[in-house]
């Protein structure tokens, strides 16, 4: 690629720095909102330490102040607080937070925004398809080829082709949601447990539906019973049946918790370092700074890597879970030729 330092790139860097300053300013404004809850926090000194300059879920905090009740109850409307005992996770404020929109609208708003963005992007990239592809079309073709090779190498060509659109959509949707926090005033919906559970429920339904459609009802029940072959196997059915049912339920829960935990961790990391940038400015005597030192910039690479890995892990495990309910999945794998490039 062209590695010259062009005007466009300098402008892009400048815009990113400016955006970072805005984010930091919004964080300082947010600090003022937290003056009221700080009184309530004084009653719970252990939680006070976890409040940062960029902390916050306003609604949960206000409820805490008003009722002085359990913090988990205070965050019942949604938000990161629900995940860790009501303490406010430090995070970079997003647009809806700055506009004081209630927390419960954040996940649907941002996930729909990502979906609409992807829809428009792919429509735009795939318009006017040519035999000799342009850059946009090549990008899409490369992505589809990668997903096709990947899914078919696990499920086999025949069954794999059925799930390429599902797994491909899942990967790109999760990846974009994970990275949405890097856009100034953006927010990762996958850092909330509601979103990740919704995704994993979709995977769960798909896996169970696939199992039912490929194995039939009796085959499905036989699989759940541990596929007993002899008398001992049938005797052990009452033990294996609950184990298998629980195993099916564990899979979506583990998918959801892993994605939620990792993306929340990345968000908190960015929030903590942004807050540190503001505190440094405050430390030199400027008590109401309009910008912060963008200390979180080096962590953006980590977020990029982590988000890609988590989206890949989700897609990989979805494909593997589908493969486990297909009849004779091992034969499919052996039959599949090595994907050539």
């Amino acid at each position, binding site marked *: 690629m062209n590695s010259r330092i062009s005007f466009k790139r300098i402008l892009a860097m400048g815009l990113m720095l400016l955006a970072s300053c805005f984010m930091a300013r919004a964080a300082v404004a947010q600090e003022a909102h937290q003056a009221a809850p700080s009184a309530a926090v004084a009653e719970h000194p252990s939680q006070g330490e976890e409040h940062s300059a960029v902390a916050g879920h306003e609604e949960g905090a206000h409820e805490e102040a008003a009722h002085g009740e359990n913090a988990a109850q205070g965050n019942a409307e949604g938000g990161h607080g629900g995940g860790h005992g009501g303490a406010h996770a430090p995070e970079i404020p997003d647009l809806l937070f700055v506009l004081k929109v209630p927390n419960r609208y954040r996940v649907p708003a941002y996930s729909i925004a990502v979906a609409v963005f992807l829809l428009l992007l792919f429509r735009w990239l795939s318009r006017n398809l040519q035999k000799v592809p342009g850059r946009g079309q090549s990008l899409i073709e*490369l992505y589809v080829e990668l997903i096709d090779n*990947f899914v078919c190498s696990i499920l086999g060509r025949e069954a794999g082709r059925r799930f390429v659109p599902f797994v491909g959509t899942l990967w790109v949707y999760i990846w974009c949601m994970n990275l949405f926090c890097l856009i100034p005033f953006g927010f990762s919906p996958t850092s909330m447990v509601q979103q990740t559970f919704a995704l994993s429920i979709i995977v769960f339904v798909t896996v169970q539906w696939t199992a039912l459609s490929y194995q039939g009802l009796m085959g499905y029940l036989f699989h759940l019973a541990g596929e007993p072959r002899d008398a001992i196997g049938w005797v052990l059915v009452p033990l294996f049946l609950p184990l298998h049912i*629980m*195993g099916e339920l*564990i899979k979506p829960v583990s998918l959801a918790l892993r994605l939620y935990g990792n993306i929340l961790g990345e968000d908190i990391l960015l929030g903590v370092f942004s807050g540190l940038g503001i505190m440094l400015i405050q430390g030199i005597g400027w008590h109401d700074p309009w910008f912060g030192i963008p200390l979180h910039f080096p962590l953006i690479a980590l977020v990029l890597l982590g988000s890609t890995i988590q989206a890949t892990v989700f897609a*990989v495990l979805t494909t593997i879970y589908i493969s486990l309910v297909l009849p004779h999945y091992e034969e499919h794998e052996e039959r599949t030729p090595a994907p050539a490039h």
Partner: protein
Amino acid sequence: MKDDKPKQKPLPFRSKRRYDASEYRQVGLAFAIPGLLLAGPLVGYGLGWAAEIYLGFPEWVRLVGLGLGFASGVRESVVALKRLTKEQERERSRDE
């Protein structure tokens, strides 16, 4: 004679590296194990709690659920580990 054909540049995002899904599968499987071990007892306890609250079962059902959940998590982890081992063996045999 000079070749007048313009040289076709490769696209910048085309990797020359051979695509291998096995690595991704291994990473995915390795990542699955801690999640399964964590989610097992959680799901088991949750089901036990639900049985106690909504179906009127005695309290020890939670403990049974916890134990079953843990066993189920371990079982799923063993399945993932077996598959991971198989992937590694396949990769090794292919390299040889």
